[in-house]
Each structure stands twice: as C-alpha cells, then as structure tokens.
C-alpha cells in the first residue's frame, strides 16, 4: 500500500473507487454507503470520486457532490495521521468544553476544523458523543475519553504522538 495518504489508507485510485462503488450499487439508496466505503479505503473522498461514483450509480455529478458536501463526516482532502475531536454540546460546555477547545487550539496551533502547525493532527469539533454525564468528552484517534481536563488532553495527545510516530 502506498504512503501518500495517512496511516493504513490506500492511495486514491479511480479503478478501485469504481470497484467499491459497484460492489454496493445493488443496495437500496447506496450513495452514503458508497461514500463511507471510499472514506474507509482512502481516508477521504477525493473530488475525483464524483464522476466515478456518478457514472456507476447513474446519478448526476451534482447529486454526488451535493451529498459529499452536505455531510460533515466526508473529507475531500487527505486527513492528518492523528485526530483530536472535542465535543462542544451543551452538556460538555457545562463542564468546561470551551476551555478545553481553547487549550487544544492553543497547543496545536490551529483553529477547530484545522490541522496542527506541524501537519500531524486534525482538530475537530463534534456535537455530542453521547457521553454527556462524563464530560468534557474528547476522542483521540477514534478512542473516546470522558472527564478530559486540559492536562489529560495533553497526556492523551502525547500518547497518540508516541504511539503512531
């Protein structure tokens, strides 16, 4: 597997994308399932997916693009190797989520929705992980953590850096 994208993801390939799309084309209303499959495979949904998917599913390019751009989860650029997601729902705000977001933003040198100054970490906001009694909640590399203080977030980010570097 090539290394132009992060982690264990494959390099973008129109042929592979078309194969994946065809494998799911028989499902009722398959487009979201297809886009999830592409993102699992490649780590993001390359804009080159639009004509490929549209062709296989017999949709217009506008429909495919419209769906990709509607949903927060679908990324159109390769993601950083590590991810930090912080919940900004009201329940987490009630126990300091905003301060945690500010701290993470400061540490990583980027705003929410951006990538750290070293290009290694994506910082995202999430509206609720369903962990509202144990906030503030953050997810580091897909692992959920409750009662996250700024110090704890630093430790988790350090573990993440050492674990995958």
């Amino acid at each position, binding site marked *: 597997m090539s290394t132009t994208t992060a982690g264990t993801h494959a390099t973008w390939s129109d042929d592979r994308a078309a194969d994946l799309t065809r494998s799911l084309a028989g499902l009722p209303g*398959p*487009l979201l399932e297809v*886009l999830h499959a592409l993102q699992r495979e490649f780590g993001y949904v390359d804009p080159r997916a639009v004509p490929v998917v549209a062709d296989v599913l017999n949709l217009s390019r506008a429909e495919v693009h419209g769906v990709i751009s509607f949903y*927060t989860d*679908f990324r159109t650029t390769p993601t950083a190797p590590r991810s930090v997601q912080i919940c900004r729902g*009201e329940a987490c705000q009630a*126990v300091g989520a905003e301060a945690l977001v500010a701290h993470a933003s400061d540490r990583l040198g980027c705003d929410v929705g951006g990538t750290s100054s070293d290009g290694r970490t994506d910082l995202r906001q999430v509206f609720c992980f*369903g962990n509202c009694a144990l906030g503030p909640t953050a997810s580091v590399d897909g692992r959920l953590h409750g009662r996250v203080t700024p110090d704890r977030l630093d430790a988790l980010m350090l573990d993440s850096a050492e674990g995958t570097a």
Partner: protein
Amino acid sequence: MTTIVYVPRDSAARSVGADEVAVALTAEAARRGDDIRIVRNGSRGLLWLEPLVEVDVDGTRVAYGPVAADDVAGLLDAGLLRGGEHALRLGPTDELAWLSRQDRVTFARVGIIDPLDLVDYESHGGLVGLRVAVALPPQDVVTAVADSGLRGRGGAGFPAGRKWQTVLDAPGTTKYVCCNADEGDSGTFADRMLMEGDPFTLLEGMAIAGLATGATRGYIYLRSEYPDACDILRSAIEIGRAAGWLGPSVLGSGRAFDVEVRVGAGSYICGEETAMLDSLEGKRGMVRAKPPLPALEGLFGKPTVVNNVLTLGSVPAVLADGAESYAARGMGRSRGTQVFQLAGNIRQGGVVETAFGITLRELVEDFGGGTVTGRPVRAVQVGGPLGAYLAPSQLDLPMDYEAFAAEGAMVGHGGVVVHDDSADMAGLARFAMEFCAEESCGKCTPCRVGSVRGVEVIDKITAGVDRRANLVLLQDLCELMTEGSLCAMGGLTPGPVRSALAHFPEDFGLTPEEVAQ
C-alpha cells in the same frame, strides 16, 4: 468455582477506563490463580461511578466503583471475589437507592445481561413480547400499542399506536420500519445505552412493529458518533437471524422481517424524521414538507413507521406485560415510563427510568445530587439543544409533556442538562442560534438565514449596540422562526433563546422590564 465479574462495555464506561480495568482483572486473577469469568455488560446507568464493577456473590451482585485499573490488585486483596470490604465497595447493586427508586421497564435488562447473549436475554424476559405478537392478528398488536398510551420518545411525543395504525391501514405490500437512532441532542444518551446494553430489545421491538404493520424490512439509522453501538447492533442482528427470529420467517410464523444498520455522516438534522428518510435513501438530509406523512409516503415513497430507539425498545414490554400494565404508569396523557438522562454539570449523572410525573427537582437534586462543581444550579435545559432553559424557580415542574408545553418548554427525549451559576446564558442563547446555523439543512429561509441573523443580533445586544431596537428585532426573529420554519430545528431553536432572555436578562445587559415589554 468460576466467579462472574461484570465490567461494562458501555462506551461511557470505556471512556473512563473500563477496558483497562477488564484487562487488569484478567491479568491479576490469572496471576493469583483465581477462576473468574468477565462479562462485559451494559452500564447500570450510575455513570458517575463508572467503571462500576460487579461481582456475583452467591447470586447477589455486589458493586464496586469507580474502579481504576490501579485499584484491581487491592480489590482482589480485599476479597473482591467474595464481596469483601473495600473503600470502593458500594454494596449489593439492587439495593443502591439510586436504582431501587427507579421503575425500569425499557431499561429492565440494560446492565443486567450480557448484551449479545441470547440465552441471557431470554432468561430475563426477552422475546416474550415478540411471541405474543406473532400469535396475534396485526390489528390487535397495533391496538395494544395504542392502548398502552406509548408516545414517541424521540421528542415529539406522537402516539405510537396512531402512527402504526396509519401504516397498517395504508395500501401496498412494501412497507418499512425505520428506527431513528440519530441521537444527536446533547444531554441524551439513553438510545446509545440501550443499543449497547440490550440491542435485542430494540430488534425485538422493530420485529413487532413489522408484524403489526405488514412491513418486512427495517432500517436502523445510526449516527456515526456511535461506533460501539454499530458493532453491537450488527452482531445482534446476525445472532437474531441465526436464531430465526429475524429473517424470512420470524419465529417460524412464515412472515418475514429483517433489519439493516445504516450509518449517518455527522449531520444533526438527519435526526428529523423526514431528513433521516432522505439520508437513508442516500441523499442530502433535507427536511421534507408534511404532508405527505411518512406513515403514508416514507422511505422510498412507501408507508413507513418511523420511531425512536426508546419507543421501539419499549414495545416488547408493552406486548409482554400488557397495555394496561404500561398505561398504569405516568400522569395525564404521558403514560408509561421515561428514561431521563442526567447530564452536564451534575454530581451524579446517568440514567433514571421512572414513570412520568416525577419533578425536575427530584431528578436534579435527589438523583443528581446537584452540580458536580458544588455551585448553585443556575439553569436546566430539558429536551436537548432545542429545549428551553428552566430557572431554579421552575424545578417543581412535573415531567409531563403537557405540563412542560404549558411553560413553553419540552420534555423531549428526557435529556436534562444542568448548568451552575458560572453559566453565561447569553453565550448559550447565542450558541443555540450558532448550532442551528451550522446544522440547518438549508431548505427553508427562517431557519437557514434566521439563525445566522440571530447570532448577529445577540452579539449586538450583548455588545450594547442599540439594545432596545435589537431586542425587538430578536423577539421578532424568534417569532418568525417559530412560526415559519419547516421543521422543529428552526421552529424550536428560539426556545432556548427566549427562555434565556426571559429568565436571565442580566446576562444580555437587559432588565426584566425591558424583556417583558
């Protein structure tokens, strides 16, 4: 003899170290030659005590918590496996007041059983409701649900039986049951806990809905933020198929019903039922105008039952114990139990299932123990981000759809988010508008544009720019969004804004008199 030790696999418990506790227990017991079997159960719902470890001592479950991995060796030294004394020992789980004061119907098995053990499920009353339903004509099943008084637990509170009746009466052979598992409201997590802790109950409820209405296909629309629930549900579906109560012939009845999980993609609006249907069809999650009702023209234009996780999860109990038993609980037109969720700045957060009619004060003070910071409660938001902020003076409101509606508030999904006196209510009102702007599907102007203007106007008010004129503008905007939006997103966003203005005008730099005008 093998000792059974329960360590929850609920993602809230995992978020505070349950996996590490399970690993430490396995290793430490092996080192000592202790014969244990660890069951990864759902959470008992006392989330502030997670990871809550339970040991089966001669048939009685004894609780310890919150347990950290570092505590494990000391606990075993203290005789954990025999229920021995320790600073973390809480006593027999069923005797904990927090649990014994509840009336668990929908959550009867959550935390008790191994979520994916069908034998455990059946030995705790599972599949009884489905067996009853299989033996009844569809109309009798629908009538039972109607008679139980069960209303949609997703927030709107629409009578489930009436919805099912519409689908049953609709012509056509292709019908669907769609479970709305897009639990996006901050402060709600009961859907997740049921799916992780007792997934068979949801599947059984969906199968009953299918038999009752003639639908043969079910979809669970699950939010992508719940990966653990997704894995558990998919495993549970496989187990249900293998056991023959999902698939071409439900319990040998010759009637088909099967379920598939579809995962969302981070859009809050897809929790609105028509946007969810569009999303299930692989489209942008755009809200549809009603009519047509989804019960008549729903998924792919076919008659569709759309119910929330807890609604469908309550159905097996209604069929198993009878409509009267369910309807005997509650008050007014709010029958049965609601699974309240205590969240935010609360000392004892978690799940409280009890009959409607309990007061907000009992929930926040008696069960919740006040704020975790120890400061006074300033505001309580009930029913998610679209629910009103209630002031401490309103805590004696009974949890009842109609009583809340009379106060301009809503019970919604039963989420209760507590804020202490450090809360900036103008900031939270602004956030309500900001959230709406972020998550609006964009179909109708009051929501799409109104929310953006709402943020701007609140900013002007708090900055002291032409306060009076901008207050009039904000109130006008709130009225327009309430009356003119296509769905509850734009229609209810003014709820938190107006209530924050009414109860906490000082946070906006206003006087009560100015707001009242």
